[in-house]
């Protein structure tokens, strides 16, 4: 059984482009302090950044949780809707519904979810109108 060592929680506010990346930077700092290896820190940084940006540009806001176990890290990105209608489409590289405003800032390549999955050891996503839930494991041993 994996032993839970620590939990961090970060709030992510919808539409606030200016502080985008704040939660991910905090996650990176915390992992470095815990002595997690740079390769793992990089993977978690990519995952948390894409999760954070998606909550900001596509959702009504939500939270990111980082759970530290002795043998893995679990990152959960939970938001308050409006949900993803077609998950298969959303997971396809290049698919994006990002607004023009978001695209002008460099978002909207349709690569965020595929990037998250690629950097995960286990990736689960579910979505209803109430919200989208993403649960990701990254092994550290």
């Amino acid at each position, binding site marked *: 059984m994996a032993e839970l060592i620590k939990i961090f929680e970060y709030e992510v506010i919808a539409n606030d482009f200016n502080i985008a990346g704040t939660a991910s*930077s905090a996650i990176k700092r915390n992992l470095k302090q815990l002595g997690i290896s740079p390769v793992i820190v990089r993977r978690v940084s990519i995952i948390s*950044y894409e999760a954070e*940006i998606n909550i900001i540009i596509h959702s009504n806001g939500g939270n990111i949780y980082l759970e530290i176990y002795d043998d893995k890290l679990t990152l959960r990105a939970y938001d308050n809707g409006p949900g993803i209608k077609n998950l298969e489409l959303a997971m396809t590289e290049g698919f994006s519904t990002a607004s023009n405003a978001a695209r002008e800032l*460099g978002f909207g390549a349709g*690569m*965020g979810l595929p990037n998250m999955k690629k950097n995960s050891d286990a990736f689960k996503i579910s979505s209803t109108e109430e919200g989208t839930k993403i649960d990701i494991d990254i092994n550290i041993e």
Partner: protein
Amino acid sequence: MKLKQIIESLQVEMMTESADLEAEITGVYIGDLLSLVMAKAKQGDLWITIQTHLNVIAVVDLLDLGAVLVAEGVDIEEETLAKANSLNIPILRSRLSAYDLAKKLSQLGL
């Protein structure tokens, strides 16, 4: 290659104050779509882009990129420079296109 060699050889403008000019630049990545940069750019890379919004800094910080080189002389937002200064992230700027900059960097051996 040291950052200061790049600044001298390419005659780029240094837009931030607090950068370490002795920092090693180990590669180059060109791109304006942030999630592609997130996937592909490597630690120590010089990132050539025309994006200048604050979000650029989050990407550099998370990936430990070496520096940002803004191409085409694009205006850089004040908040972006302030944040870069606070994190000691170097931002450079040139009037040249990403292609012309890449040619010069390649000639330098990067």
